[in-house]
């Protein structure tokens, strides 16, 4: 991988996302989670159409704030076809936007703006560490078939400064985030139903990413992960090194989907208890990506002591996920 080129878009791949998650702390000491994601998807139906509106690329953006005082997410989404300067994803460096929603890398840090309907994010993300290339130098397998794979790097331990607004109330925030950038043409195998993913900024300065792909048959089709220690040593986990064990489930009152929200995670020698900031961090994005999933802030602990914070993503618990 080469940077900053690979921060930019890879339009020839079918699917691509820039996925920023993290914990925020307001001036009054509130602990919040946030998520800001931009998806790009290549469409072949419009091939050859010279119209400026031709939907060659469709862009989707999701934004959410996990607010324990509210009990469920502040969330919003946007979708648009790339074109006419109103939406797009540039190559060369990270510049991706839909109208006023944007994720742009400038001066070494990422600026995220999501002026959503009920809330807003305006954050500057300054990575303190170099990109963490997952899999084999950034080539991350997602299934038993070698074709099911993605290009995938993470930026853990990002220092966050900026503002959020909830119903017009604007507040300064600081915090720590995690940015994933992943692109692929064949992410999931047809037999796959969804995945469980976790990205943790551990207090000792190390970063852990672990995932598993669940099959439609209920079994685990693939698993993987990376651990980078504070001194920069990088460990890659094979499928057998990773174990996700559910500890507690939560049933969504809206969709009746049952999500395991507390886990015991084993990654190599590491064993962590994962518990959510709050149970209801479900996102309904049927209007844009077509999926309903759980994406939320979590704490990691060992022996009852918090050792890190991060985000947990649970997909495919309702219907099998389709990435299109």
């Amino acid at each position: 991988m080469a940077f900053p080129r690979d921060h930019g878009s890879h339009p020839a791949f079918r699917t691509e996302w820039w996925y920023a998650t993290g914990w925020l702390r307001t001036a009054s000491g509130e602990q919040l989670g946030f998520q800001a994601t931009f998806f790009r998807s290549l469409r072949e139906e419009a091939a050859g159409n010279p119209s400026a509106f031709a939907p060659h690329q469709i862009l989707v953006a999701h934004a959410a704030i996990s607010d324990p005082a509210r009990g469920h997410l502040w969330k919003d989404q946007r979708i648009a076809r790339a074109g006419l300067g109103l939406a797009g994803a540039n190559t060369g460096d990270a510049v991706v936007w839909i109208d006023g929603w944007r994720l742009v890398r400038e001066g070494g840090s990422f600026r995220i703006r999501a002026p959503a309907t009920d809330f807003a994010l305006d954050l500057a993300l300054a990575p303190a560490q170099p990109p963490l290339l997952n899999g084999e130098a950034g080539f991350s397998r997602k299934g038993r078939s070698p074709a099911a794979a993605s290009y995938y790097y993470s930026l853990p331990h990002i220092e966050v400064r900026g503002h959020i607004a909830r119903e017009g109330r604007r507040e300064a925030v600081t915090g720590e985030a995690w940015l994933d950038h992943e692109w692929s043409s064949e992410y999931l195998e047809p037999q796959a139903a969804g995945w469980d993913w976790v990205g943790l900024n551990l207090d000792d300065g190390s970063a852990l990413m672990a995932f598993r792909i669940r099959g439609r048959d209920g079994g685990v089709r693939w698993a993987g992960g990376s651990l980078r220690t504070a001194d920069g040593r990088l460990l890659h986990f094979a499928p057998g090194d990773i174990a996700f064990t559910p500890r507690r489930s939560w049933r969504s009152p809206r969709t009746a989907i049952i999500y395991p929200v507390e886990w015991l995670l084993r990654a190599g020698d590491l064993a962590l208890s994962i518990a959510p900031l709050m149970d209801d961090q479900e996102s309904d994005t049927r209007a844009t990506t077509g999926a309903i999933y759980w994406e939320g802030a979590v704490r990691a602990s060992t022996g009852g002591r918090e050792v890190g914070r991060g985000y947990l993503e649970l997909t495919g618990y309702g219907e099998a996920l389709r990435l299109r």
Partner: protein
Amino acid sequence: MKAQVRLWWRLWCAQWRAGPVRMLVPVIALALGVSLATAVQLVNRSALAEFEQAARRLSGDADLVVRGPVAGFQEGLYPLIARVPGVAVASPVLELHVTLADRREPLQVIALDPLRAAQLQPRLLGELAGERRAFFAPDRIFLSARAADTLGVRSGDRIEVLVGSSRRSLEVAGQLSAAAYPRAVGLMDIAAAQWRLDRLGVLTRIDLRVARGADIDTVRAAVARHLPPGMSVAAPAVDDARLASASRAYRVNLTMLALVAVLTGAFLVFAAQALSLLRRRPALALLRALGVTRGGLARALAAEGVVVGLIGATIGFMAGVALARWMLGAVAGDLGAGQLESLSGALIVGPGDATAFILLGAAMGGAAAWLPGREAATQPVAQALRAGDASAAFARVRSWRIGGAVTGTGVVLALLPPVQGLPVFGYASIGALLLGGVLLAPAAAGGLLGRWPAPRAAEARLAIAQLRGSSARTAIGFAAIIVSFSLMVAMAIMVHSFRESFIAWLDQALPADLQLRLGQGGGSATLDAAGQEAAREVEGVARVEFRRSRPLVLRREAVPVQLVAMEIGEGGVPALTIVKDGGPVPGTPAWISEAMEDLYRWRTGEHVTLPLGGGHTLAVTIAGVFRDYGRSGGSVVVPRAAYVEAGGDSAANEALVWLHRGAAADVVVAALHARLGIGEALQVRTTGEVRERSLRSFDRAFAITYALEAIAVFIGLLGVGVAAASTALSRRAEFGMLRHLGLLRRQVVAMLAEEGLLTGAIGTGCALLLGGVLSLVLVHVVNRQSFLWSIDLAVPWGTLAMLSAVLVVSAAAAALIGGRAAAGGDAIRAVREDW
């Protein structure tokens, strides 16, 4: 108080028992009037509501709509507008009519970006749930149920459209529910439509949602700053208004006619009440003598009118709803004289309507009864108790001065300009002239009868004397005829004038043997140079004159103007009905329709630059004004050569075809179809066929007018009948006395017939005169201001003569039927009846 109410109730019921028919007539009259008003109002409103709904459905919850020329504007404007601060959502739209192969009517296609549109129209997303991805594919179209039905296709079928001179095939990807899309419409992805329908780079509309908390007017101003000339941004309400304005004048006409019917009905209530009070005068005087106060009497009589109004209006409202339902079903609510597309026919009736119309009826009943009631109440008791005559009661109505003043006001009102495009003062003028006529007519008739040579026969002399003497009854008889018949005369003259002028215009507009058109209503099909050459080479064709006709938006609030580029004949004058000729002008000449004068204030000799779209313009000098009954929104005719030169558009979509002598029209039509190969989208008609079709649609548009007129006249005749019957009843003793004096029975009958004939003849004469005056106002004021075109006055003498004869005979017959019974045996006994 309660006792008095009970007393009145009892007296009123007794009247019903005594003369149910007499009591029923004002109820029927009022019911007829209210039913007409209700029906017209409901049909109008349902039509408008459907317009609004359709517009709203298409523009969703847009706060603002950006529009430009009908031909569209550059899409580059869209991102500029979308980025204007305060704009939350900007949804680009391309609306167009595509010509379908094998179909005459074009299909309206709305192309949009479903991702953007969904933010304005959540319903749209619901419609397309799960099919959004199918939407992105080119060559896909979603059809409304109605469109699919009309075209006879289902999902998965393909439809062929003509774009320019080539064919494109579209797959029907799905159907939109009839509830959401009641009209025939196709939905496409904007990129697909731009590409497949040859509109790359073009939009016709941008719907905007303003950000929460932003001020709409501020955002509108900010958006407006980005718009080039010829484009504007406005709230969708204005948009609806523009759609509706196309048929507004016609609908206002109908509403006015319906109101005339209500007024005639109210007048009849007035007449019936006045007559009934004349009859009941001694009884009322007795009540006064027994201690009913003057005010109490007046109020009670007005209350009677209100009750009659309530009953009549309730019946009328129900009849009106039924009538409206029938009209929507039968005429499909086409109140726009063909200017509106046909509607789905859903009648909207709210509880407010019933209340409003029934209260209106009650108010009219009360008002109609108020004047005669007050008159009766203020009558000196003693005199009323003693004398049977009441001629003095109406003496004040016979004043020349009041009638003259009202008529004068009517004339002045006719000279005033329209208000917001509506001939408000014109209608007010008609009302004033009508009232003036009613006021003047009895006096005029009195004068006429005074100079009438005294006939030999005693009964004839008696008849004249009776008409001159009992002004009250005579005035009511006259007024009933004048109110109803003069309006009918005026409408008949107006419609006849219109029809004659229309025929003359048609003949002028159709000089050739065949008329050829491609894709009506702004369809997409045209004939390119090769196609035009092919048409010329068809056997039997002597000469072809091609035209390019396309809409031109000069001002947003107005209906688009039609630009017609045609070949200009010898002497530089086109084959048009020229009403103002400015003579030869320097540079490129243009001729404008009369509407252009009124709407755009263009004058002959003026230099104008026409925006042809795509940055092209055509500078012209107005050389003359022509009459155009085809387009009320205005049209401009320019030489085709100049048009082609200015914009490079050499395609044609209309043509006039002259045949070789001896060539069979149907053979040539078939050959043209075969040669041009564009199926039904090519419409070739013989001149005779076009003429016949045009006249048929003209007559259909005015059919509803005729129906309203007929009902007004029927109400008028009811009035004559009521006056006659009531008169005859109160004159029974008089007939008895005359029989005693030696008048033969047939002489009494002859006297009655002569009275009826005279009333009918004089009333009809006055009505003809007044109707003539009213027709001048209708033709030169109301019509000119509503439709913006002129009409040459033409009087349908034969029709008027026949109608007059029918009316006079009907009036005589009504008088005779009413009087015959009264002249019979019990008339003799009536002599001994005391009052």
